[in-house]
């Protein structure tokens, strides 16, 4: 099937799509979730980081202030300790410069002061610990001394003459009145910066500017140069009156910066800044985000791989199942699909596999059904046709003849109808067995359908005829089924290759024609001849023509006399119908009566015949010719409740007595729906119409039954009469029939008597009436009248 096979690659593509869909689903789920998480985390982190930075800066500012204060206190304390040292005071008072310097150095070392300056009361440098480089210079930071004078001590931040930024403390040197000022200083760069950095991790910078100005110079910084410069730039124009925060961008990154003006009455205003690198604070958050990102990517990857694996787990078995279904489609049922496991797909696979087995088994059966007849296990029509075709091809090559032998059981329908289909089937099986037993293995025996068998023989028609005879003989042996011994007969038609036809279909049709011919003519066996084909074709438009035949008065009656063997008188005549076709000439009854029976048209024909017989009888009686005319009626007529009325009407119409009409029925005809048939027969008999049982002896009815049928006459079947002279058995049968019939007060008629010897036998057996060619064949009315006129009763004894 092209659409299916074409859709298979597409199917595989869809399975790949399942993997894609699962992966897309997982990604579609995870990516937004992870994305949102990352966004939220980033947002929260940023906010937290900024809050942490501002918090850190505020804390840093407190730490810074405390450090500043602590350093100041430490400086002041150190300065005070120094200023009260007796030796120092003595040295200063004594203007012992050397001693003074050494004491300064000693005390400076004690607390790690970076700068110690001794200032005279007139505010000039007396001594310093920087190699006395600045001796005699004015001490510029008068405000510190003023403050120390007022408060006993003072501290502040200043840039000393060496250009360095110091935290400075100044106290008086007393003896015990102030005799000098001692200034102690910590180098901001060395001390405060490091402390701030170690305690807060913040960058600290100091800017200086003239009072009231808003341009700042960098005094000191722990930050990278770029950042300090950036801060300096941003502070330009900022008078830094109050503490505030800024964000400073530099190539090093973003810094959050807290600007703190330092209190003081110094020579310059000093602003300290604390700066926190935003990147540094964000770094752990960034790491967290990176971890999240990596985790997310890993989750995504694992989910994707997992999705693919799951999808594969689903699609691989589905591929396998698809493969299996494709193989099944292609007719290969052999390979099972192997899917292990306990999941739904495995279960589906197992079910499909069982289905495959079932299909395989059924296909096998179908194949058998397709080529074998189930009932008889013989080849069927299909196989037979196939073999015939092959055999013909072979025969053509080898220039050998072939024969087809078509066999049809004669009474099968009756058997089926009377004894049931089971019996019918058994008959067919027995027949099949016999045929098979009779023929060689190489010969094909087939059942074509119904009761029709066919034999293919690789021989000429002549030889086939012999074989056909053998078959018929074999079938004469009754078939015993249960308590019934059935006498099954058959008609055989033979057609030969190449004489009759070159192609199988025609050959079969010819055999069929031959078989019908045999059946029609009660011939037993018939070979095809060219004339048969013509008749056969003529049947085709039979029905419409039959209808026309009645309307156009194309039907004729012919008459065959019945002779009383004792008196030699003409006892009556059987009226037989003939069809005078306008184009085809005379159509024999066998060519249209069975057909009419099948179609139900027989009732019209029977009524016409009865009417015609009554009319003829009336005419003859007018001519002084008083003969009883016997008419054949069919099974269907017996089932027609209107039949007796039709007969009565015909009698009345033609004004003839009932005695002048007799009806013949076949004994098997009564079998169907006995009650209805007997009712009809009783009515007919009640009209005083004679009833004859036709073809007696072929059925299975007892004489008692015949009596029940109201019969007045028995007609012995011609098959018993044919071989009467030669066959003792037939003779015995006929004798017993005659004797029994006589006992029942029935008249016995023998029909089909063709020769004098048979006539003599019948006379001896006590048969009452004889009908047959030995006296006359069925004759048209005019000839029959002439024959009657010419008849002499003595002729019955001397014969024609």
């Amino acid at each position, binding site marked *: 099937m092209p659409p299916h096979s074409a859709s298979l690659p597409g199917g595989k593509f869809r399975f790949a799509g399942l993997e894609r869909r699962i992966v897309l689903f997982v990604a579609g789920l995870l990516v937004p979730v992870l994305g949102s998480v990352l966004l939220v985390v980033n947002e929260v982190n940023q906010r937290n980081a900024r809050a942490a930075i501002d918090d850190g800066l505020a804390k840093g500012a407190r730490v810074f202030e405390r450090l500043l204060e602590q350093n100041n206190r430490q400086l002041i304390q150190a300065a005070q300790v120094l200023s*009260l040292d007796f030796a120092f*005071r003595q040295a200063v*008072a*004594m203007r012992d410069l050397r001693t003074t310097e050494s004491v300064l150095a000693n005390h400076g070392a004690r607390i790690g002061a970076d700068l110690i300056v001794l200032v005279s009361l007139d505010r000039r440098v007396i001594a310093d610990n920087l190699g006395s480089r600045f001796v005699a210079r004015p001490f510029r930071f008068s405000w510190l001394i003023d403050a120390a004078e*007022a408060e*006993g001590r003072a501290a502040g931040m200043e840039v000393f003459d060496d250009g360095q930024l110091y935290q400075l403390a100044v106290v008086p040197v*007393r*003896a*015990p*009145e102030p005799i000098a000022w001692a200034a102690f200083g910590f180098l901001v760069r060395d001390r405060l910066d490091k402390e701030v950095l170690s305690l807060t991790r913040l960058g600290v910078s100091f800017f200086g500017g003239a009072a009231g100005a808003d341009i700042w110079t960098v005094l000191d910084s722990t930050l990278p140069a770029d950042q300090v410069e950036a801060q300096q730039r941003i502070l330009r124009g900022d008078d830094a009156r109050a503490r505030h925060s800024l964000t400073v961008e530099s190539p090093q990154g973003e810094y959050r910066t807290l600007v703190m003006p330092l209190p003081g009455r110094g020579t310059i205003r000093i602003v300290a800044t604390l700066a926190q690198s935003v990147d540094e604070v964000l770094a752990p958050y960034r790491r967290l985000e990176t971890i999240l990102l990596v985790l997310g990517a890993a989750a995504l990857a694992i989910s994707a791989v997992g999705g693919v694996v799951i999808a594969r787990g689903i699609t691989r078995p589905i591929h396998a199942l698809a493969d299996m279904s494709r193989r099944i489609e292609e007719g290969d049922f052999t390979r099972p699909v192997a899917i292990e496991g306990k999941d739904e797909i495995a279960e589906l696979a197992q079910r499909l596999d069982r289905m495959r087995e079932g299909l395989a088994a059924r296909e096998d059966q179908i194949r058998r059904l397709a080529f074998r007849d189930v009932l008889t296990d013989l080849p069927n029509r299909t196989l037979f046709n196939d073999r015939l075709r092959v055999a013909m091809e072979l025969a053509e090559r080898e220039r050998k003849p072939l024969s087809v032998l078509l066999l049809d059981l004669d009474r099968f329908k009756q058997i089926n109808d009377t004894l049931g289909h089971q019996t019918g089937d058994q008959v067919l099986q027995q027949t099949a067995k016999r045929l098979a037993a009779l023929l060689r293995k190489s010969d094909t025996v087939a059942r074509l359908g119904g009761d029709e068998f066919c034999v293919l023989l690789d021989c000429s028609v002549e030889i086939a005829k012999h074989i056909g005879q053998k078959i018929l003989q074999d079938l004469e042996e009754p078939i015993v089924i249960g308590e019934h011994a059935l006498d099954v007969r058959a008609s055989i038609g033979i057609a030969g290759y190449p004489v009759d036809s070159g192609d199988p279909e025609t050959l079969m049709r010819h055999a069929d024609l031959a078989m019908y011919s045999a059946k029609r003519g009660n011939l037993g066996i018939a070979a095809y001849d060219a004339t048969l084909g013509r008749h056969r074709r003529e049947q085709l438009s039979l029905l419409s023509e039959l209808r026309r035949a009645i309307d156009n008065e194309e039907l004729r009656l012919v008459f065959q006399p019945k002779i009383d063997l004792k008196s030699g008188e003409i006892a009556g005549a059987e009226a037989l119908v003939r069809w005078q076709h306008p184009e085809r000439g005379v159509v024999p009854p066998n060519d249209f009566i069975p057909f009419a029976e099948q179609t139900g048209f027989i009732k019209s024909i029977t009524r016409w015949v009865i009417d015609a017989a009554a009319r003829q009888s009336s005419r003859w009686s007018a001519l002084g010719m008083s003969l009883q005319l016997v008419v054949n009626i069919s099974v269907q007529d017996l089932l027609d409740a209107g039949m007796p009325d039709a007969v009565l009407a015909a009698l009345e119409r033609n004004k003839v007595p009932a005695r002048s009409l007799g009806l013949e029925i076949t004994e098997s005809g009564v079998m169907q729906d006995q009650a209805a048939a007997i009712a009809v027969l009783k009515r007919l008999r009640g009209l005083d119409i004679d009833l004859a049982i036709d073809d007696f002896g072929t059925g299975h009815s007892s004489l008692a039954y015949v009596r029940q049928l109201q019969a007045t006459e028995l007609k012995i079947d011609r098959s018993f009469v044919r071989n009467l002279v030669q066959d003792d058995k037939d003779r015995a049968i006929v004798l017993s029939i005659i004797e029994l019939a006589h006992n029942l007060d029935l008249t016995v008629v023998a029909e089909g008597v063709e020769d004098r010897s048979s006539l003599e036998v019948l006379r001896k057996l006590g048969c009452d009436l004889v009908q047959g060619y030995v006296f006359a064949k069925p004759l048209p009315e005019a000839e029959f009248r002439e024959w009657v006129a010419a008849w002499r009763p003595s002729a019955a004894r001397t014969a024609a």
Partner: protein
Amino acid sequence: MRASSSATRSIALACLALLSGPAGAAQLAASVTDQDGNPLADAVVVAVPLQGVALHPPSAGREIVDQINQEFVPRVKPVFVGTPVFFPNKDNIRHQVYSFSPAKQFELPLYAGTPAKPVVFDRPGVVVLGCNIHDWMIGYIYVSESPYFAKTGADGKIVLGDLPAQAYRVRAWHPRLQGPESATQQTADLVGSGRAELSWKLVLKPEIRIRRAPVPGMRGHY
């Protein structure tokens, strides 16, 4: 009233010294206030005769600066040049009194009670006293080249009586005096009336106090 009795004694000594001089008794009264006009105690007023002062040999008189309750008492002690001063320790702890002043540099090693020798202040000028143990202890000995001097009491006033009636250069001094002492100089001529009255309004430096160390049994600061 220890200060006034001490002043009286000084005046008495001066009188004794001048008894043999050109004589005539005169009186100099003076009052000293701070820049706000409040009477200033512990100010020293010195009157130097214009004609000069005859040099006298060291008198037999001696002066005392006690150490009581870790303070110099009196805080300000004017003495005539050449006067020996004893520094008796009345506390039950030791003191180490020193001076790096140019007028007199000395150091009394840790001692209790009264050192055997007095310190003789033989050059005029201000001698600032300190104690090496107690940083807050501060005292002043004003060594005057003139025998005519007095220290103000709480009312900021002094009276120098029995002065030879002549002209004097008079100056005032106080431990917290802002500026040089010579700037306070005034002249007073006692020749005519035999009497003069002077007043000073001194500009003072802020006092730089040194915290007193806590002592067992004492609370608070001095």
